């Protein structure tokens, strides 16, 4: 395997296709378990900004740095603090977090599933208690990122080396032609995020233990004036936006995960109350 370490955006452009490496907290296990076939690793740490400047967050900023930064809206701070373990947060970057792979056990065990390019989702007829209750017809995998749900509620914008797009445009439901959940080109790199400052925001998370677990359901709420935005993690193959708890009526749970809807309803109600 080849490791490239570009020191400028020009060198990055010249690097060609490869798997991007920043904190390595997801890339290393994926490579070790041979889940993705890759010949080139591109270490982007020298070209991706790190640090917070007002409402701008460098994509190379670690979750540990974000969770304690007073400039960051509460929803994002709380989402970062509730993610993973201190060790992982000290390494994992916000850019990498937005692009992390699913935790679906079938995908992680390399079943030839829809997301691996196969023709079916094994979770739908298998064990799916941790899986999606929305948009789960092709794949029932659930998006694991806590910060992504917060950024969705916060209506963040993403700047890459090619363009600027909203966080909701960053994600796409996988299709037969394209199994990716992120709408970026293979050589596109998230450089920074622009996060508007809400009047109030919060992130609530239900998990199987107190710490170090992916969200069964995560709910972020942010209020801008009278407008309240909601972002959910753990309920769909991508971070999921809802206008209100009523949106839960459209969920399509699998036989063993309807409980997530009940949790989501309670957390939405609490989050709305918290942001006033």
């Amino acid at each position, binding site marked *: 395997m080849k490791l490239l370490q570009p020191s400028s955006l020009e060198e990055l452009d010249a690097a060609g296709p490869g798997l991007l490496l920043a904190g390595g907290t997801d890339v290393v296990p994926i490579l070790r378990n041979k889940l993705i076939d890759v010949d080139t690793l591109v270490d982007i740490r020298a070209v991706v900004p790190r640090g917070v400047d007002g409402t701008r967050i460098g994509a190379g900023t670690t979750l540990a740095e974000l969770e304690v930064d007073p400039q960051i809206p509460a929803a994002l701070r709380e989402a970062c603090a509730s993610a993973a373990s201190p060790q992982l947060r000290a390494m994992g970057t916000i850019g990498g977090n937005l692009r992390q792979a699913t935790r679906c*056990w*079938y995908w992680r065990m390399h079943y030839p599933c829809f997301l691996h390019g196969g023709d079916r989702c094994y979770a739908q*007829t298998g064990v799916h208690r941790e899986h999606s209750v929305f948009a789960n017809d092709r794949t029932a995998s659930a998006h694991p990122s806590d910060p992504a749900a917060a950024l969705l509620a916060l209506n963040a914008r993403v700047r890459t080396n090619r363009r600027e797009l909203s966080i909701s445009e960053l994600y796409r439901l996988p299709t037969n032609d394209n199994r990716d959940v992120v709408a970026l080109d293979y050589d596109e790199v998230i450089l920074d995020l622009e996060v508007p400052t809400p009047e109030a925001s919060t992130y609530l998370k239900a998990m*199987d233990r107190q710490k170090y677990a992916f969200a069964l359901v995560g709910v972020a709420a942010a209020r801008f004036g009278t407008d309240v935005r909601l972002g959910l993690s753990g309920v769909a193959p991508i971070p999921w936006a809802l206008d209100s708890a009523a949106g839960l009526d459209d969920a399509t749970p699998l036989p063993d995960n309807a409980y997530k809807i009940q949790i989501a309803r*309670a957390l939405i109600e609490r989050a709305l109350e918290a942001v006033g």
Partner: protein
Amino acid sequence: MARLIRTEKEVEGNYTEQWIVVDEDPVAQWPSGPLEIVGRPLARVDGAERARGEAVYTADLQLPGMLHVAVLRSPHAHARVTQLDLARASEAPGVRAVLTPDDLDVLTREPGYPGAAIAAVAADTYDLAAEALELADIEWEVLQPLLDPDEAVQQGSLIDEPERYDRGNVEQGFAEADVVVETEYRTQTVLHNSMETHQSVCQWEGDLLNVYTSTQYIWGVRAETAAKLGLPEDKVRVVCHYMGGGFGAKNHPGEYTFIAAELAKRTGRPVRCALTRREENLTTGNRHATIQRLKVGAKADGTLTALVGDFVMAVGWRGFKSWTAGPMKMLYHCPNVSTVEYGAKVNTGPNAAFRAPGFVEGTFGLECLLDELAAKLEIDPLELRRRNHSDSDLVDDRPYSSKNLIECYRRAEPHWEKRDEVRARSNGPWKHGIGMASQIWFGAGGPPSYAWVRVGSDGRALVVTAMQDIGTGTKTAMAQIAAEELGLPVDRVQVSIGDSARGPYAAISAGSSTTPSMGPAVRAAAHDAARQIIEIAAQRYHKEERVLSLKGGNVVSADGGSWPIEEVTGLLDDAQILGKGARGPNPTGMRVLTFGVQVAEVAVDVETGEVRVDKIVAVHDVGRVINPLGASSQVEGGVIQGLGHTFSEDRLLDPNTGAVLNQTLDAYKMPTIADVPEIVTDLIDVPDEHLTNLGSKGLGEPPIIPTSAAVANAIRDATGADVRSLPISREEMLRALAEAKEKEKTREAPTAV
């Protein structure tokens, strides 16, 4: 003179008769209560070296020229290997030897569970071995797995004969009952997940085999390995100085030991066979799932009249039925009991003993059932248990050697009495409650077990016995016992363990037996040495032996006079005082058991199904406590492991293929420190006057037994919801809450006309 007697040995409910040699003069028990060193808290004698990383575990061992093994394992739960060719693998870089099922009988062509070992490769590094395995040419005929334990029982796919137990007449018992409760409980499969995975390093020296292994039973590994290889037992030396956890799964050598031994023989090199975390969680054992269909009958005053249990256990492809019916048979004074236990043979990894196997599961069922009965009878759950207390063992019709369960209940009472106060803390969606559950288990230990004590002219003592400390702190307890008997400060006593070639036979560290088996032997050996020191001192200082004793590093005379022990031993020069001791028999015709009760305080978020445990009070009766600090650490470990079993741990199987879906620690969720509540340990600490020269029973298993039932009962107290299935995941909690709400509605609704 040595005396040969025939005695009864009991390990976890199984009695065997055996000959043992006992010393002529048994040593009298010490008085109850804390002594100079025994009964007082002591930090682990090897704590610093463990914390500093200096302790060499099997996983740390590096021998010159050592090879590493990767094992080819079945990806299928049930399959047949139709073709296996390792020619390309054996030519891969760094490969020194390969093994197929033709070479070794622990390898198979007919795997019955995912992870079953098919072939093995030894190479210069683990990575080279693993890469070589990818070159194995193998073809499978995949067979339909049988996964459902009820279906297996119906089909007659059983591990062994069903076990039936009857006493009294349950039909009559139910006829006498005013109230009957019938319920089904389920427990899940959980994995041991010791920090150190199962592993051995094998090295031949001529015809002598050195086995460095992570084990709970040095002498068992020696015997089983010798038998497997057709060697005299003294040709196998087993070494385990430090051990990274076993919890019951490391009682035997395991296939990895035989693979390493064979590959070491073929290559002439030391060979390590160490399992990865994934292999660990596929193949080395588990606490098997259970389905418990239970029925209880009682009179209006709470007197139990009948207990019936039908237990189905998903044992796996091999293994044994855990004693899930044990608590139902043993815990209460119920004259009519009928149980049947089925061990389903299914296409899952073999089970292994796991910290109080069967009793953890059976106590969850029985103690939840008792609380459901208490609710129906409107009797206080603690009072219900007191009313059904048993003064003697009804299974074998024997008296208990000692039993202080009523005292445990008394000490639990102040916590239990806070029920109203705790319930009053309920606020919004958070409902608070208290629950309790009783504990019964074995823990007598037994003979044979031996120890030697050597005292040099410098007045320092070395305890030598080939036992293992599996992380429970027994090495520290042995140092305390020897120091107490020798009247030496504990820092003048060293303990040498962990090597079958250095020291006499020592018991298995399973069934809560290390301290009750080994402690009396160590004390007897120290007593033998102390006697000799006193004899020498009596001659040196012209005193009668009966007035002399050893205390605080001195020989002390009752009629005045005190001399440092090293002044006496200093006379010896290179001569040494050698003491030897053996574990005496267990009391004949008595049942030696441990007892206890735990009280749990919980809070339940009835909207999201989140459960928070605020406090666990653990009151246990295990006889004399040697080291209160080590004991509370054991209790805390047991409770935490119990909470993992209660809430978040669950080995998940794909229902179609039988694949284990959560083999790694991100997906298989053990509790973290953030999940640990306040744990209050209260040990009765009264010696069992009939048991050995110590009166100590084992404590390893008791604290994990009642935790899940106490928590489930607290949840019922807080919310009225009956959780009947472990783990109490969000979905199980929300299901139980919805069911309780439904029941409430039916109760309130006017009866249809």
